């Protein structure tokens, strides 16, 4: 755990951003495209990092960045309405203002994955924090081995970025497999748990890197499936979620054993957090 001796005051002060576009992705999920309102510069970020979004008068919430890291001019966040703050964020419309602090945290280790097969595994809304990593992988495609994207959702209607998934699926250099828990007869993808898809993924388990994001219970099962496939625990990376408040590792709200999820994570090697994930009430 790295405790900062001093925190840059700017990191605690939200900057005003204007909602340039709000797009409904799913019944309870919106994507916000934000641009600075204060005349300041864009927010450059690493895939996997998050910002603190402040819905004025309601509160602040940690939201992963979902946009293209090569195009930071427009800040993209996909938000699911699960509480008061995220409901307020999902209610924002064009030209309204939101406060932004960030970016924070450690992102996906794409440099470490260079030259290797990469498996990206997303469950539900977990595709949102992985989207910048996928876009970055595709932008620098020649630097990686085989790239596989496995996506799981409840039903076809719960699939995030469905159109983009279709475009990605059309590529010859990306193997995209999508599964849902149940579906009607018009669904052409697979039906079953996302962890089962790991068996069909084309990769060399001795050198592959896996990036996993979804609800914690899904990541636990996913990690077990990847370990069974032969990946070492240090090659599996998971993005954790805890109650982030300060986002700079001082308040302790997101403390997870010896780790501060906001500043040591949110992306961790599975080897580092495996025991904690098995520990109840951490």
């Amino acid at each position, binding site marked *: 755990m790295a405790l900062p001796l001093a925190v840059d005051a700017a990191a605690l002060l939200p900057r005003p951003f204007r909602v340039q576009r709000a797009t409904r992705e799913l019944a309870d999920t919106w994507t916000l495209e934000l641009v600075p309102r204060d005349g300041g510069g864009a927010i450059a970020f690493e895939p996997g990092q998050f910002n603190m979004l402040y819905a004025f008068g309601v509160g602040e919430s*940690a939201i992963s960045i979902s946009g293209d890291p090569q195009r930071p001019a427009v800040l993209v966040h996909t938000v699911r309405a699960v509480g008061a703050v995220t409901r307020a964020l999902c209610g924002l419309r064009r030209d309204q203002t939101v406060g932004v602090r960030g970016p924070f945290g450690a992102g996906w280790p794409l440099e470490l994955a260079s030259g290797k097969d990469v498996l990206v595994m997303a469950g539900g809304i977990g595709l949102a924090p992985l989207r910048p990593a996928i876009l970055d992988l595709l932008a620098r495609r020649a630097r990686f081995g085989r790239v596989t994207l496995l996506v799981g959702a409840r039903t076809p209607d719960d699939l995030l970025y469905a159109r983009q998934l279709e475009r990605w699926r059309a590529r010859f250099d990306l193997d995209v497999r999508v599964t849902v*828990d149940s*579906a009607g007869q018009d669904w052409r993808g697979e039906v079953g748990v996302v962890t089962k898809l790991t068996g069909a993924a084309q990769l060399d388990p001795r050198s592959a890197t896996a990036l996993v994001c*979804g*609800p914690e219970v899904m990541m636990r099962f996913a990690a077990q499936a990847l370990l069974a496939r032969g990946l070492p625990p240090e090659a599996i990376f998971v993005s954790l979620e805890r109650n982030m408040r300060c986002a700079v590792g001082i308040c302790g709200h997101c403390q997870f054993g010896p780790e501060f999820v906001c500043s040591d994570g949110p992306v961790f090697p599975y080897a580092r957090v495996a025991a904690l994930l098995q520990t109840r009430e951490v």
Partner: protein
Amino acid sequence: METLDVVLARHEFFRGLKPEYLAFIAGCARHSHATAGQYLFREGDEADRFFAVRKGTVALETFIPQRGAVTVQTVAEGDILGWSWLFPPYRWQFDARAREDVSLTVFDGACLRQKCETDPALGYELMKRLAHVVSERFESARIQLLDIYGAAARS
């Protein structure tokens, strides 16, 4: 043309099975094809067959009033389909529909049961493999029951 036991040896479920066992159970098997949309079996029908999928995808479905047919699982190349042929009352629990043109090896359930009774070592080997598949699917069903994508996650 390849004999059935040679084709079976390449299927994931039968991989590594002794050649004499493969030859023995091939006597209960035949190649089959189903066209897209065709039902391999229907819920409640007599479960007298066991399928090894060689190519294509099959949807396991059930019908829900007001909602229609719902797919609960898909099985694909290398998977097996059906274990209701093993246990009385030998009735299918779901519908199985070919989602595309499908190539299968179909076993006569009664014949296969008889062979397992005749040669308990073969029976034990096949039951171990079936138990492994059943346990995997049971685990998958448990995970599906957990509704793992519905849990709160940072968006």
